């Protein structure tokens, strides 16, 4: 009678154990980076203080990467962001909140 809940628990545990590796695998990319972004943006945005993700470049050779924007410095969130996703490097930036730019501060007009 108690075997079924135990098996379910073990199954869920195995999913949790394999998920980070699936997200962070270091192999060469098999999919277009935009497809990879679309497949992972929700998980990344669910990490606290993550306010955006996009396709960018790093280095002088402008290697394609995924960029993750953080509203504020948060070591725990930075730790949860994988360094690689499906063969693409992931770069974390502390950028602040993304805000609509409609309301001007007085005296700014050029």
């Amino acid at each position, binding site marked *: 009678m108690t075997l079924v809940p135990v098996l379910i628990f073990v199954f869920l545990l195995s999913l949790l154990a394999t998920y980070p590796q699936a997200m962070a695998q270091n192999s060469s990319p098999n999919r277009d980076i*935009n497809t990879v972004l679309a497949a992972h943006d929700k998980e990344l945005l669910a990490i606290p203080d993550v306010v955006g993700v*996009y396709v960018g470049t790093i280095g002088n050779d402008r290697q394609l990467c995924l960029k993750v924007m953080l509203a504020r410095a948060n070591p725990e969130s930075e730790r949860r962001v994988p360094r690689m996703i499906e063969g693409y490097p992931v770069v974390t930036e502390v950028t602040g909140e*993304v*805000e*609509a*730019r*409609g309301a001007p501060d007085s005296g*700014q007009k050029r």
Partner: protein
Amino acid sequence: MQIGTTPYILSAGHVLEGDTVLGGNRRVARTGDPIIQPGLIDEQCNRFLAQSVGTLIKKRSIATSNTDCGIARVIGGMVQTDGAILGIGTISRNTAAPALNQPVQKSGRSTGLTHSHVSGLNATVSVVFTRECHGTTYQKTFHGQIVVSNPSQAFLRSGDSGSLLVEDVSPHPRAIGLLFAGNKSSAFANPIGEMLNFLGASMVGN
């Protein structure tokens, strides 16, 4: 831009129809409201020092689409209708898709004419809006947005929303996007094609 052959002023939705709650002024933006130039903050909040240049056509883009755009029907003779932008000149009537590292420019209320480059594509980004001037805030997530390098907010600052993002070429640059949000390192624009589709509009220009 134009819908059919009727010219409209294009800006960000949160600029033209940003007052979404009764709040402090007991008003919400409605179709037919006057659109004035310069804005109230540049005229000591005295609307009679400004000129009415259009009438608002409420589109509710933020609530109903993946864009942040607003339009006003032009009052005849109050604005140029040939696609000319201050500091840039007459743009092309054609549009362009963005590309990584592409040079771009914009002309805006706060920072004037500035130049930068596309630093990211296909952004999924959560943007903070206010429900009215100095009002409460809410967030909306947009997909497929254009990212522009904005170090120290030299390219885009508060008050620049609604600026058209165009190629940094001369003459007659093509429109790429509509700028609407930013932070200390990046600016964000709606892709022009999706926005024009939402409005059923086309660009004017050469």
